[in-house]
């Protein structure tokens, strides 16, 4: 399960990241690392700050404090396009597709192929080329939904997730951040995405996978980073990971029972 391309060079690292939402202190000095050619699982309880961290890494959210490095050089994405220019692509937990546009249009949003010649310079789009390229990308990823059909609004949750994943994977050059990409997916589809995750990592990209499914974590990841209450509490190599250990790290106990039961909210400090 582990790969040959493991290196100690990090593709993306973050240190001391703080984010406030109004009065909620969502990230409290979070750290993060991932390596090229590896699948890094990012796990943590609900509300631990995983999605927030992903947004910081992908430039969708400016942290209040903290530094991010890409390939060892300081790089703080201020906008999503900064991150994209650096080769970092993201599937957000809330997907972020334009529901009125079609799958092809979403795949190429912001990076449209233009017509050749003068028309192209006027901004005219080459819809045919984009459709063809999308069909190819979908096929490559083993998706068989036709990307040319209708608008995203008319697709099922699973189909939408497919579009979002395809978009990220086909554009990424360095890092792919996947925030619960399989949450809405069926068994077969989930397997498809996990296989793809593996394949993408094998091509040398750094893949970051957020999921609540520990079986998937254990089966696909090379390393696991655990977030709790806005901080990294553990960073575990695959060979040292067991279900019990992961759960214990997430919930803050050494054994699941030694700690008061954690529940649907991990914002315990909010509970008075």
């Amino acid at each position, binding site marked *: 399960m582990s790969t040959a391309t493991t290196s100690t060079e990090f593709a993306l690292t973050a240190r001391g990241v703080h984010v*406030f*939402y*109004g*009065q*909620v*202190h969502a990230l*409290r*000095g979070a*750290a993060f690392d991932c390596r090229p050619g590896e699948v890094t699982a990012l796990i943590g309880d609900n509300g631990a700050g995983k999605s927030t961290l992903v947004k910081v890494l992908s430039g969708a*959210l400016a942290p209040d404090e903290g530094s991010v490095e890409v390939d060892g050089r300081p790089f703080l994405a201020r906008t999503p396009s900064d991150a994209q220019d650096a080769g970092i692509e993201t599937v957000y937990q809330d997907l972020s597709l334009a529901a009125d546009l079609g799958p092809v249009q979403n795949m190429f949003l912001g990076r449209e192929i233009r017509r050749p010649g003068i028309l192209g310079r006027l901004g005219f789009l080459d819809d045919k080329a984009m459709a063809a390229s999308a069909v190819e990308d979908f096929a490559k990823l083993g998706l068989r939904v036709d990307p040319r059909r209708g608008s995203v609004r008319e697709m099922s949750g699973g189909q939408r997730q497919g579009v979002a994943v395809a978009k990220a994977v086909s554009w990424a050059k360095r890092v792919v951040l996947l925030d619960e990409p399989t949450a809405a997916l069926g068994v077969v589809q989930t397997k498809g995405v996990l296989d793809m995750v593996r394949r993408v990592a094998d091509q040398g990209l750094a893949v970051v996978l957020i999921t609540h499914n520990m079986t998937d974590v254990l089966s696909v990841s090379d390393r696991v980073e655990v977030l*709790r*209450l*806005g*901080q*990294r*509490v*553990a*960073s*575990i*190599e695959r060979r*040292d990971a067991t279900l019990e250990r992961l759960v214990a*790290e997430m919930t*803050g106990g050494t054994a699941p029972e030694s700690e008061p039961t954690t529940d649907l909210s991990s914002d*315990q*400090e*909010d509970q*008075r």
Partner: protein
Amino acid sequence: MTTTTTTQTPASADTLTAPLGRRITQHPLFVVTTALVLLFVVFTVVNGPTFLSEANLRNMALAGAIILILAVGVTMVIITAGFDLSVGSVLVLSGVLSVIAMRAVGDTGWTSAIIGLLVAAASGAVLGAINGALVSYAGLNPIIVTLGTLGAALGLAQVVTGGPDLNDVPMVMADFGVARVLGVPWVVVVAAVIAIIAGMAMRYTAFGRHTYAIGSNSEAATRAGIKVKAHLAAIYMISGLLAGLAGWLSLAVYGTTNINGHSLDALSAATAALLGGASLFGGVGTIGGTVLGNAIPVVLSAGLVIAGLQSFWQQFVTGVVLIGAVYLDRVRRLGLGRRSPRRTR
């Protein structure tokens, strides 16, 4: 190679009760209140104590009272994520029908006036119900529907009168229009009572709760068993009813139907609601906010006239203050939440 970095879990940090200052600036009505206070201060400095004289306060209250009644209805509609452009026309048509009914009764006393009131309220409610039926049961865009009734009601008002304004209003009504209780014009009292009742209903009753729920997520409200369509229709009907009432009060105060003078009423009412914190996306807004929001243009206009500013400049300044108020509100919210990815508008 294992790197385990177990860090101390921060115990509790973020629900420390915020300091009082912050709690105040955090209040949704902070900016509109501040803006209002500021206007009072500026105008008192510029215009001297006359601005705070009883007469001027009374005038401003009177000037704002009728639009406030419309704004209460419009606020409720906006909270459902709808819109009501028709209130001005409904006011006019209700007034016209009311005068015609009173004329038919013939007497110039309270009998006639009360029948007029009932007719005005009923016509308003019927027009509102038509809006409501079209928006909720037929599922049409509320802006287009109420734009349609805006035109249709105004046209009908003129068809009924044959064109000119009507102005034979019973004496008692005209008296009522200037009468006061403890120095406060009756019309202002009526508007205040309506605002208070509506405010309580929205805040404390199931009716209000359901209204917010519908505006927030009408699908969720339906699934929670709320009769969303009937409720929506009722809200539009109430907006119409209030406009009908306002039509009667307007007759009492101005003594005329003033058919052509109300085309922008709906915008004024909506402005009050939006300044008061309502969102066109529904689910938020308060009647209290609307009361404050409604006061801003009124105070501004009175203050500028007293300051002797030319009327063209008044229009300009009013526009700028409007934008300034929402801008400040925006700055406040940014200062707090920084990012609310959706519904920033």
